[in-house]
Structure formats: structure tokens, C-alpha cells
């Protein structure tokens, strides 16, 4: 095993007096990222709609990996703007991942998650005791799922 100490150009970025403060950089980046919220929610809403459609009666077997992909999309995009929505989608990811191992997914548990995503989407997006209680409920649903 060879041990090397490479010289990185990034090392010089901290020594430059012309730089901006970290706080300023974070503030600028956050505003730039927020500019995408409208576009991001179009994708998020489409993902939730697709999940709801998959859960509808008569739609046949649910595919855990498709559920995972749609839930992960919500985590990726909604999480930046509405943390509770992200936590609910993460819980659905956990459920889908568990189902990928067991081979079958509990449709009822997925439906509960999807309805919760819709509910949280209609709320103001901020964390509160109510949203925490809702997420705790989802965690319990995943824990019970086989």
C-alpha cells in the first residue's frame, strides 16, 4: 500500500483574502437553490401522484423498487424545501427497502405513506409537533411491516 500526500488546488482557496465568508457563500447558495422550488415541486407532485395511482385498487402487484424510486425522488427534491415531506418519503424508502428483502410489499402501509405525503404537501412545510407525531406514526407502520 503506497501512501501519498497529493497537493490539491483546493488547499489554496482558504488562503485567498479576496474570498467571501462562509456565511455569505451558504446564504447565496441557499437562495440559488430555492429558486428551483417551483420546478422541483412539479416533479415531486408527479411522483406522489404516480405512487397514489400504483396504490389504487385493481392496479395489481406493487413493485417495491418502483415505490423506492418514486419515494427517493421526493426525498431528493422536496427535502430541500419541506423537511417533513422528506422524512415521510424516507420512511417510504425504508418500507420499500424492507419489501425488497422480503419479496412482498404491504399495500396498506404504502397507501398510508402516500396519503401522508399528500397531507404534508398541503401543510406549510415546516416541522411542528404535529408533523413529528405524523412521522412517528409512519415509523411505527414500517416497524410493523413484514
Amino acid at each position, binding site marked *: *500500500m*503506497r*501512501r*501519498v*500526500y*497529493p497537493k*490539491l*488546488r*483546493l*488547499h489554496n*482557496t*482558504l488562503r*485567498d*483574502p*479576496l*474570498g*467571501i*465568508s*462562509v*456565511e455569505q*457563500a*451558504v*446564504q*447565496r*447558495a*441557499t*437562495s*440559488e*437553490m430555492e*429558486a*428551483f422550488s417551483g*420546478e*422541483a415541486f412539479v*416533479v415531486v407532485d408527479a411522483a406522489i401522484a404516480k405512487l397514489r395511482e400504483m396504490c389504487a385498487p385493481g392496479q395489481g402487484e406493487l413493485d417495491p423498487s418502483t415505490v*423506492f424510486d418514486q419515494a*427517493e*425522488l421526493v*426525498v*431528493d*427534491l*422536496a*427535502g*430541500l424545501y419541506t*423537511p417533513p415531506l*422528506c422524512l415521510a418519503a*424516507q420512511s417510504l*424508502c*425504508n418500507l420499500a*427497502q424492507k419489501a425488497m428483502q422480503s419479496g412482498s410489499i404491504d399495500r396498506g402501509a404504502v397507501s398510508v405513506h402516500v396519503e401522508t405525503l399528500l397531507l404534508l404537501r398541503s401543510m406549510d412545510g415546516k416541522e411542528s409537533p404535529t408533523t413529528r407525531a405524523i412521522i412517528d406514526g409512519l415509523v411505527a407502520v414500517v416497524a410493523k411491516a413484514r
Partner: protein
Amino acid sequence: MTGAIPSGTRINLESSVVLLIDDNRMSLDILNSAFMGFGVRDRLRVDSVDEAKRTLKSRNVDLVVVEAGMPEDSAFAFMRWLRHEAAEPVCYTPVVMVLGHTTHSGVTRARDAGANFVVAKPISAGTLLSRVIWIARGRRAFLKGDSFAGPDRRFHNLGIPAGIDGRRAEDLGMDLGGPVDPNLSQSEVDMMMKPMKVEL
């Protein structure tokens, strides 16, 4: 928000070149906007690892940010190529891997693939910038071998477990025992390293 980065730290990323790899256009846009906010002018955006490889062969890149969940495990294949096959100094390029659904095994896998840091989605600007600063500040050794190539995974210097002989020349094989005094505070350590006058 910015982790352990002291307030007032200044950074200039204007001349840095950052390569962003994500197959999801929206995620790529968001990642790109974060680096735009950090002041990076040269942001190279690609949606496949093949394009990323081509870019790295033709451009000097200071940092790679790659989405771990791309189809067919391509992000990990890219990491193997970068760390094991790419020419020097490209193989040493720092990499931040972005994980969607963060599991313990996912983080371990990214670390073992040679990522410098892992950032969990949803990405916050503060977390992302703190990882860039950690890389800029750090002097982590880079290990290059057949089984592993990447930044030293033991960068906390916790050492090898007691009773086990290390494989590296600098590994100490003895049991040092437990602490006999309380841990020093950071300011006490600083005073030992660089004594300063104090006002009494």
C-alpha cells in the same frame, strides 16, 4: 449549518473547477445552483459517467461531486476507474458522493470506493460547503493499493485496535491503556502547542 467551520472563515472558489455528475437533470440543476452560490465559475455538468471520464481526461478538475444512485451502479464503477485506473494526478481528485437514501451500508460502500466525503440528500448548502472546506483544509493521506485506493479511511487517527499488529510502518502495536487524566479542552491543547499570553 456549516458544522465545525469557524464563523468568519473566508473561501474563494472562483478559480476552482468542479465536475458535477448526476443523471437526474433537476438534481443536477440544484447541485449546480449550490456551487454557483459558493462562487464557483467553472461548473462542469454531466449526466453520465462516460462523459465524466472524458471530461477528466481533458480538463483539470479540483473537485468531483457524484450522485451515488445512478443506474447500473455506474457511480461506483466510475469511482473504481478514477481511483484505480485514471492517471496521476487525476486519480487523487477529491470526490464528494451524494447519497439519496442514506443507509449505513451505503456510506460504508462510498467510503470504501474512495470517496472523500458522503453527503446525504436532501443537500443543504451548509453541509455541502463544510465538506468542501474540510477537503480544502485537510491533509489526509491518499492510500494506493490493489484492494483500496482513496483517502485514508482512518483519518481520525484512532489507530489500530489493541493487540493487532498494523500493516503500516507507522502503526504502533502496543496497548496504550486508558486515559489517566481528563481530556484536555481544545484551548488547553492550543496552549500546549502555541503558548499565548493571558490577561490575569
